[in-house]
């Protein structure tokens, strides 16, 4: 047990990190902060308000440089990092994680195993609001669900903040930008917005860690995290809990369905 400032200092000194990605006080709420020298360490903060999933920076090579990078990691950051590691996007030894929920109590995690055991030891409390909204939508008639989503998604301005904020949306060329063929129309319209969200959800199926960064990033508060959330719960129901990796790139001959004729 140690505090954030001391840990950061020792990382710069002992471990020779060039950069610590953490949080600083922002203009409205804490925000991601790139701490590149010991002079900036006092700016680092960590508390319950630190919502951004900074794992999104782990795959941005031009920001990270070549050296060792430290990252102040909340539970959601660690979960995303585990998934990134599973997908071979980050390597062990590339990052040092300063795990914790509060600046007064952090611990240094360096390898996958210790991150895994930290995550296992800190089970997430399900967000009751999200569960409530999910149940509410599930209980609607199909027509009402269609009306609900059509209304919500017709507001979408296609700023792609949901994509940008998601640590697992790291593709260098997104399907939304492919134009031969043009799978998803690039303009904002109810149906093309829906097609975009369907793609996002399908590409997240079984990979989404449920951090809610997409929803928090959305400037219009569209409840798009519910799509991936719904799929996650269906997937663990259909294919078993604790399934890891990309669910859609694997299969089980015993998979059950009830709609094939």
């Amino acid at each position, binding site marked *: 047990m140690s505090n954030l400032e001391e840990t950061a200092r020792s990382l710069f000194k002992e471990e020779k990190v060039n950069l610590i990605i953490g949080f600083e006080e*922002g*203009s*409205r*709420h804490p*925000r*991601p*902060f*790139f701490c590149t020298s010991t002079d900036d360490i006092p700016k680092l903060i960590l508390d319950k308000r630190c919502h*951004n999933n900074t794992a*999104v*920076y782990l795959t941005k090579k*031009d*920001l990270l440089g070549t050296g060792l990078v430290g990252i102040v990691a909340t539970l959601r950051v660690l979960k995303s990092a585990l998934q990134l590691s599973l997908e071979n996007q980050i390597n062990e030894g590339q990052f040092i994680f300063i795990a914790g929920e509060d600046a007064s109590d952090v611990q240094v995690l360096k390898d996958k195993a210790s991150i895994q055991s930290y995550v296992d030891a800190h089970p997430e409390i399900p967000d009751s609001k999200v569960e409530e909204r999910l149940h509410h939508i599930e209980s609607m008639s199909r027509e009402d669900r269609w009306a609900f989503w059509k209304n919500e998604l017709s*507001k979408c*301005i*296609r*700023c*792609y*903040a949901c*994509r*940008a*904020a998601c640590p697992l949306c790291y593709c260098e060329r997104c399907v939304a*930008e492919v134009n031969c063929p043009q799978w998803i*129309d*690039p*303009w*904002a*319209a109810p149906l093309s917005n829906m097609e975009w969200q369907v793609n996002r959800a399908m590409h997240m199926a079984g990979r989404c860690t449920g951090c809610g*960064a997409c929803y*928090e*990033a959305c*400037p*219009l*508060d569209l409840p798009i995290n519910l799509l991936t959330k719904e799929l996650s719960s269906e997937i663990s129901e259909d294919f078993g809990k604790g399934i890891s990796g990309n669910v859609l790139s694997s299969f089980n001959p015993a998979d059950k369905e009830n709609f094939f004729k």
Partner: protein
Amino acid sequence: MKRYIIEKSKVNEWLKQIIKSTERVLAPVKDGEKVYFRPITSPQETDYDSVTTTESAKETVFPRTETLFRFKTEGKDTTLSEVSAESYPQTVLWRARPCDAVGFLPLDAIFNWDYKDNIYNLRRAKLTIVSFSCNTSDSCCFCTSVGGGPGNTEGTDILVTLLNDERALAEVVTEKGEKLISLCPTLFKAVESDEGKSSALAKIPSRFTSEQVQEHLKNAFDSSIWKQQSARCIGCGACAFVCPTCACFDIQDDKCGRDGKRIRCWDSCGFSLFTKHTSGYNPRPEQSMRWRQRLLHKFSYMPDRIKVLGCTGCGRCSRACPVDMNIAEHLYSIANYNHEK
């Protein structure tokens, strides 16, 4: 400019008349936590409390997606047809803010500085803006730093200020505005003075001046500040899409069978694809360069080229940013930064 006094309690009566006589009245409407300009059918739908709407008012003249023309193919032949001017509705934008109204000036300049964009101009000519002075503000507002203010009449047709007593002041700037007043002549009483308007306005401290920023940007292209500021930027288009003056767009074809339309839709210089050539070469490959383009375009290139600042200080980009890229804060640090480094 003509000035009138109207009882606050009669404002809705006036709005009712406006709704009755106009094809479309757009006003701020609350939807969950957010506020949008939406068509209203009764005065009660209007939200008067919010500082600004979540999205800007630019969509009244520059929709997110709009048809430029239609095409129809038969055999080897294609015929084109334009959207009729009548399909653009006569519109009153109700309870805009002064920063919304002033935001139309950069758009006017962009769409008319050289070639005239007729589609924009047709929509614009049919728009009347009734803005309301700000009596509140939030931490993202910085209009006074970019030459605006909570009681600014620039760009508006009518500015209404809710005075500290039972009255409201209507300052009529244009012919279009006068027409709206004439819908209910009995509700208005002409006055000479501004009836103590300034005491009813929000206090928004000026944090820098646009001249300061422009001066500093002159030699800032190679400054290290861009990388520093944009490190946390995740490269979405939220700031550009909620901005009242961002007008970059894309042109696309929407084809259905043999028919289709050419449309334009919003785009953002913050996207990596924006400048990328088909060959894969990208003149602005890094996010820091795209962030630099955004600020330089608004605060250096636009004032240089079309004589208007590309920012109204509405603060929407700061409110929308998922990683708190607060533009006023960044501009302040630019105005106080030594770019020689």
